[in-house]
């Protein structure tokens, strides 16, 4: 992979936003795979949602199509619904199982 030249770094195009989105997505993925707390995993899922949103907005800009922005609108609403239910489950886990560690929750095994 050739190193980017200075002019390529200073002329901001869609590729720059897409790369920022990719890096953000990977940071969230690292968080999901290394943190074991349920709430931290939910937070990292939010980071990954936002990385995907940035890619959608970038393509909406590049293709001059509003569909990408409408999709982000729906993604934000779905993420809010997911957080509501996920946090309710997290509160239940901590009250009934006395743990939030994803490795110790084995209710779905066997």
């Amino acid at each position, binding site marked *: 992979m050739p190193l980017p030249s200075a002019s390529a770094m200073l002329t901001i195009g869609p590729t720059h936003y897409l790369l*920022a989105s990719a890096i953000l997505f990977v*940071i969230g993925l690292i968080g999901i795979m290394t943190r074991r707390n349920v*709430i931290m995993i939910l937070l990292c899922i*939010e980071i990954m949602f936002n990385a995907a949103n940035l890619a959608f*907005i970038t393509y909406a800009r590049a293709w001059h199509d509003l569909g990408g922005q*409408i999709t982000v609108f729906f993604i934000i609403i779905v993420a809010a*619904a997911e957080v509501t239910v996920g946090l309710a489950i997290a509160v239940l886990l*901590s009250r009934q199982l006395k743990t939030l560690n994803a490795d110790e929750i084995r209710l779905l095994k066997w």
Partner: protein
Amino acid sequence: MTEAVFFYLFTIPMMAAALSVVFNRRPIYSVLSLLVVMFCLASLFIMLGAYFVAALQVLLYAGAVLVLFLFVVMLLNLEPDNLARMRLSTLRGIGTIAAAFLLFHLVRILTAPAASGIAATARPGADGTVENIGRALFTTYVLPFELISFLILAAIIGAVTLSKQQSDR
């Protein structure tokens, strides 16, 4: 040039805050770092012409979702020590390597010539103002818009049911 300055001005703090979300030992600091990520991302959205979505990002994510996270983190009173317990170091290494592998291939795909040649001709009415978004939302996308209200209803009922079951016992 100006766009480059603002791009790096918002992107570099965003990456630093995202890393802080992942690696911070205290959950409160993680949530507050995510707030920084949201605001930087909203700025990037404005730079990309998505004004309505940027406003939604601040209102819904920073205003509602993160406040919910903060409430739950404070409600559960998590200890920083048993919170920050990461997996065994070998598993953590494997996870990081897998993520780096994904990043390598994403960069390879996104910097390919096919992905960069996406500049299309300008079309009117493609700016993300409230008027344009609302017009598209209530004409082309009116069915998903109605369906998503059912999703919100289901989420509300689910959350209420989960917490009510708790108080009955």
